[in-house]
């Protein structure tokens, strides 16, 4: 009897998604096998030439991919730790609890492409406030133009923007934890740290994995932040895969090649995320047992 119902629940969403996406996805596959560019906007067939070029003679793509991995892991890790910490801070007794909860959500509501312009003015080396305030303690950094420092600038902006995402999901998770588990732990005489390690953290595992995965996906698409802050520079020191694909696609109009890169990226990401999910499940559950 339940058999028919389950499809009635699942299929409307699934089919709508597939209906909208089927053409763009197939078109992109076909595009990746063509030489479509600025002077040849045709779906001619060039075989796997674009893929060969990508795998044999485009070191820049792979450098960008490793840089992207660095950015994604660092920012998502920081967002998770900070988001969890903040959620714990405003979970229970603290003055102005509700004020802080709203306040901490605000950064993710800003439009990245606009807010990053503000960040660029904040970090502007000679006209912005950061170096101006730091000058009182006698230091200044080239926030946007030093190959190393600019990586941290990108990370700071990403952490500012998206920590609220983790914060909200984890706070919602904390607030829905069953009280019984804590009662039992209290009876055993566990202190706050033991309670966190043995009760809170394992119970938060599913929501944590979900949140980390979705953030990894989003963080890997990082685009506006880099475009506005540094355009991938200085040199190529902040260039990521998504930004590189953007340059090849919408700047140079090598759509065939950009499509091949997108697909390669998609497949690498699906494989990596599958592996990461398994690792995360083990990390979180390992503590439990």
């Amino acid at each position, binding site marked *: 009897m339940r058999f028919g119902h389950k499809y009635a629940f699942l299929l409307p969403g699934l089919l709508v998604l597939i209906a909208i996406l089927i053409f763009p996805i197939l078109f992109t596959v076909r595009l990746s096998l063509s*030489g*479509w*560019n*600025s*002077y040849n*906007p045709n779906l001619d067939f060039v075989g796997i030439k674009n893929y060969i070029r990508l795998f044999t*003679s485009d070191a*820049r793509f792979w450098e960008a991919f490793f840089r992207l991995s660095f950015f994604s892991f660092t920012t998502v890790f920081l967002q998770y730790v900070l988001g969890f910490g903040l959620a714990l801070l405003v979970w229970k007794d603290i003055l102005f609890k509700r004020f802080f909860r709203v306040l901490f959500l605000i950064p993710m509501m800003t439009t990245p492409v606009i807010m990053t312009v503000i960040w660029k003015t904040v970090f*502007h*080396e*000679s*006209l912005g406030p950061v*170096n101006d305030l730091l000058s009182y303690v006698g230091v*200044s950094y*080239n*926030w*946007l*133009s030093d*190959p190393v420092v*600019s990586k941290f600038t990108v990370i700071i902006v990403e952490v500012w923007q998206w920590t609220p995402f983790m914060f909200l999901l984890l706070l919602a998770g904390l607030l829905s934890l069953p009280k019984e588990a804590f009662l039992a732990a209290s009876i055993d005489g566990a202190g706050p740290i033991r309670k966190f390690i043995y009760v809170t953290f394992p119970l938060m595992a599913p929501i944590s994995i979900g949140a980390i995965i979705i953030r990894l996906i989003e963080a890997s698409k990082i685009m506006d932040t880099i475009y506005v802050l*540094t*355009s*991938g*520079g*200085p*040199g*190529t*020191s902040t260039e990521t895969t998504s930004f590189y694909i953007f*340059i090849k696609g*919408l*700047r*140079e*109009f*090598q759509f065939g090649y950009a499509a091949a890169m997108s697909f390669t990226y998609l497949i690498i990401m699906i494989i990596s995320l599958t592996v990461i999910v398994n690792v995360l499940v083990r990390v979180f559950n390992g503590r439990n047992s």
Partner: protein
Amino acid sequence: MKQRLRHYIMPLAVTLGAASTASGDQWSDQFPHIANTGDIAGECSYESMSQKDYSGRTLTINTHAVPVMGEPTALHAESFAALTGATVDVIHTPAGDLYSKAMIPFQAGQAPYDIVFGFSNFIRDWLPYLEPVPEYYVNMRQMQDVTQSHIDVNSWDGQMVQFPIDGDRHYLKYRKDVIDNPEMQAKYLADTGNELRVPQTWKEYAEMASYFNGWDWDNDGELEYGSAEVMKKDDLMYAAFFSRSVAYSKNPRTEGGFFFDLETMEPLINNPGFVEALTDWVEATSYVPPGGINFGLGDEINSFGGGQTLFSFSWDDAFVAAMEDTSPIKNQVGVAPLPGADRVWNRDTGAWDDTYNQAPYIVWGWTAAVAKKSKNHEMAFDYLCFFANDANHQADIAIGRFGVNPFKKSDFVPEIYVERQGWDPQIAQEYSETLLDMEEGSTNRVFPLRVPGVFEFTSAVATGTSKALAGQLSPQEALDEVAAEWEAILDRVGRDNVRDAYAIGVALEDNLR
């Protein structure tokens, strides 16, 4: 030079005289924008446009963000609508996206915009989708006032496909209160043994910029620096690099190509001339403001226009910002041609020619064109013609934020800037002469690269030079990488396709017209 200038002044003096009597005519009452001159008779004057009836029709325009180009587009659209009864929809797009925003519909076979604004170096990629400018407009009196080089950058092999609405070039801007200041000159001579003057070579430029870097030479309480340049790896930086390269690499004795050897299509981008320019540029990172290697055009304008640096070179904007009424350095900035070099690479002999060389870079700039698939060709060209009519144009060039700069012969008259914008007469004189000489005087000019897939080539330059500026590669390594990338692009696009297109620009450079 002087004679030619006078030749242009005569008719304009008449126009100006006529204008002053004409001001307060019926059109300037209705359209206060042209209050200074009133309507000026011509093919696309307010009077002529008011005879047209486009009521019930809609013109759609994709233009730049406000205010640069975007505001005049919208303003003239409003006037055009009032005069002709047409509905004009204008949308605004950031400069970096103008190409793709129009190119996606073009490639998909659509024409959502009747008029697309863009840069003149898009010309080869947009060519298949553009409607050539009809003979009527090409031959009209209003067009005869446009300088030949701006006719050239808007034309493809003799056929005009983009409509000249603005003038662009790269030139040197400097702080007169330093360079022309006897105290500073004495101090500089005492400290360096050299004369402080408008830099004639990039080496002089570097010496002066280094000397005036990092101290408060105008006593405003803030530190000043040597030079503000577009060094951010974006859609504009390669133009700055070419401006620094022309003196070392554009040799009037070796014809047949600046970017490529037209015969073999071998990229010249890694020859010693370009390497020397890039070496200079890497050195320049030591005399730009903090964070200067991440400066885009906007930062350059803020920096030089805000009085932070001694020098700047590139488009008009930084100079115009510095000359705004509210600017603290109004009338303290000078204009000069780009610096030259004491030697120039000769690729025929494979050696340096030890002679002074200077070459104007007729950089690409704003232009507009009509889509081939548009159903409103006549209305669209009328709009563009109206945009650039004498009354609108003269009012536009007086408003700095509009970004409309001289491109008509009648623009190169110092009096306009003195009377309407309160410029110092000497600065206005320098400005007019420098610009006009670049337009019409030199026979050693470089035109922008205009070939199929132009962004692949320029993007490779941006990436390579940016790596050198960041210290990832030496100038030679960086440019070798660019040359290798150019070879790969040539293979993909087809050497002959690129050669056919490049030959058109080389013909202009070699004065074969």
